[in-house]
């Protein structure tokens, strides 16, 4: 089972690189969905051989992160009428380089942190992977202009945190776990509505052009 989990972590890293180079929003949404499905499966494959498997958490995770959130994003994309990120702040080839550097950097950092005692066997690989996913998400928020891509970046960031939680530490209490999922769901819902409102009011969803509120402008 450990090999399978290592494979999953590898797919996670690949998905980060794919996110950096894809300009089509639909593609980005598929990547988020893929990560969501992996996050849904991983707690189960990790728990095999260790006893109790939380099927309810798995089903909720899988359906929310793998299906509902991507569907919400897709709907927002259709409503806002955008398909591509045309002029990113940082170009695609450079983005790929930066994400690669971030991955190397996270392996470098985690090499210097001693693992906490009692962490799972997978932690040695999972810690750098989750650092890399978190940083890729943050990088996507900075390097892309469209509000929708920024939401996608935020979700990748959040997936990285969940990956850390699933692979390294023991779970939160069930209520907290559900609370976190509920928060993320509502967040994406509200963000979807506001992306739609922005596209209606401004006739674009370039977040970098949302700049009327600052001190000099007044």
């Amino acid at each position: 089972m450990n090999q399978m989990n290592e494979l999953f972590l590898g797919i996670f890293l690949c998905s980060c690189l794919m996110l950096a180079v894809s300009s089509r929003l639909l593609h980005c949404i598929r990547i988020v969905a893929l990560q969501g499905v992996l996050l849904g499966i991983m707690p189960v494959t990790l728990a095999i051989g260790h006893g109790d498997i939380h099927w309810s958490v798995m089903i909720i995770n899988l359906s929310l992160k793998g299906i509902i959130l991507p569907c919400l994003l897709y709907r927002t994309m259709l409503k806002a009428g955008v398909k591509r990120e045309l002029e990113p702040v940082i170009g695609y080839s450079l983005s790929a380089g930066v994400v690669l550097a971030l991955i190397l950097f996270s392996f470098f950092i985690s090499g210097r942190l001693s693992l906490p005692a009692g962490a799972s066997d997978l932690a040695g690989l999972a810690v750098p992977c989750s650092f890399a996913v978190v940083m890729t998400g943050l990088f996507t928020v900075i390097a892309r202009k469209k509000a929708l891509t920024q939401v996608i970046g935020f979700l990748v960031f959040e997936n990285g945190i969940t990956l850390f939680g699933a692979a390294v530490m023991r779970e939160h209490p069930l209520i907290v776990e559900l609370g976190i999922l509920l928060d993320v769901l509502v967040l994406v819902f509200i963000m979807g509505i506001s992306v739609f409102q922005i596209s209606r009011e401004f006739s674009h969803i370039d977040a970098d052009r949302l700049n009327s509120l600052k001190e000099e402008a007044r």
Partner: protein
Amino acid sequence: MLTLSLLLLPVCGALISFFSEKPAVARWVLMITATGYTAICAVLPIHPDQLHLTETLTLAADPAGFVVLAATAILFLPVSVYNFFWMPRDLEKNAAHLGMKPSTFAAILMIFVSTMTLTTLAQDFGMLWVAVEATTLASAPLINYHRSKGSLEAMWKYLLICSIGIGLALFGTMLLSASLNFASASFGFAAVKRLTAHGFFNPAWFKAGFVLCFAGYALKMGLAPFHTWLPDAHSEAPVPVSAMLSGSLLNCALLALLRLNDIVPSDLEGFAAGYFKFFGFFSLAVAAFFIIRQKDYKRMLAYSSVEHMGLIALLIGFAAMDYAMLHIISHSLIKMSLFLLAGNILLSYGTRETALVKGLSGRLPGTAAFWLTGILFICGTPPSPLFFTELVLVKEAGIAAGSAILALLLVIFCGMSQIALKMYAPDKNIGADPAGDKLCRIPAIALAAVSALGIAVAWNMIG
């Protein structure tokens, strides 16, 4: 039971208001809910009334949480009464560009209060994170009540920046949990504190977790340099919401930082206090810089919130906890009064630019008088309790840091009073607006309460 009813009462009010769809019903429900909420808070005992969600997860009011809860309750009541009279007048002027129905607005406001209550009652880091994130989600739609490009932009920035900040706090929470070597069965504040006090933690992971949690919650609290979203959100929101955001929500984020400060083991206390001092002082400096050249009076109040969050962080850094609590309560009350008065000015003049507000003393005499009083109070003029907390802070900080803090406070005092006096100055061409002045009584009562509190503090200090 009381704890549970405190959480559920606003939710019930929200449901009634949402499904009634009538502004009149929503106003009444909001006011009745707020009265009930405040009454429950007044009789809530501090420790014994625990709500057990699971074996290890409880909700209860402890002393620090109770202070923030009390600050929320004593703001919620006046704001809802103000809203009762404000809403119809606002509908007259702004009905054409509302982002949502007034009943939905009242419903979301009540949900927002419920999430803040959850923040104050949470007794473990996981629940705390869930609640703080929920406050962001519940308050964001409220900013867009008066639909405009500006409010939409403010809402987007608020949502994105705060969510990422709080995401960092979640990551930090997980690192903290990892630093404890998974020794604790629960992640409650008391259990974590016991473990760290006995040295059962990994320092590198603990520091990393502390820094991320600090950054995340400091962002939500509006400490500079993470404050960029705050002036936009607090100035674009409708006034009742601005009052709640500045007066209550910032306290909730502050409470999260207090919880974090509480679990720091004794050999890392200097490390943690350094963060509070540095970011507190930096906020003070940034606020001073932006207040002196401010052209928008609601933004001025928002920057003043950044200043006061900085002062509270400094008080925590210098370990003057009682005075930090006093500062929280008094700042909340004064800032709420100022925002509500700013609402009167905004309704009467229809602009947020200070240059266009002329002859306030002639047009809205009551509002003008209390506006000036409030500005003096927020700058720490006695009998405001802020005078005493700032006095203690300067004394604790020592000669060099103390005089730097005093100089910045002086700059802020000059900047704010200059703006307020310019607005106040009599102008013969401006006629009176008696209808617009009626709403000044609620802030006046709050200011009177604050000065009574200040006199009590002075009495206590002398005696």
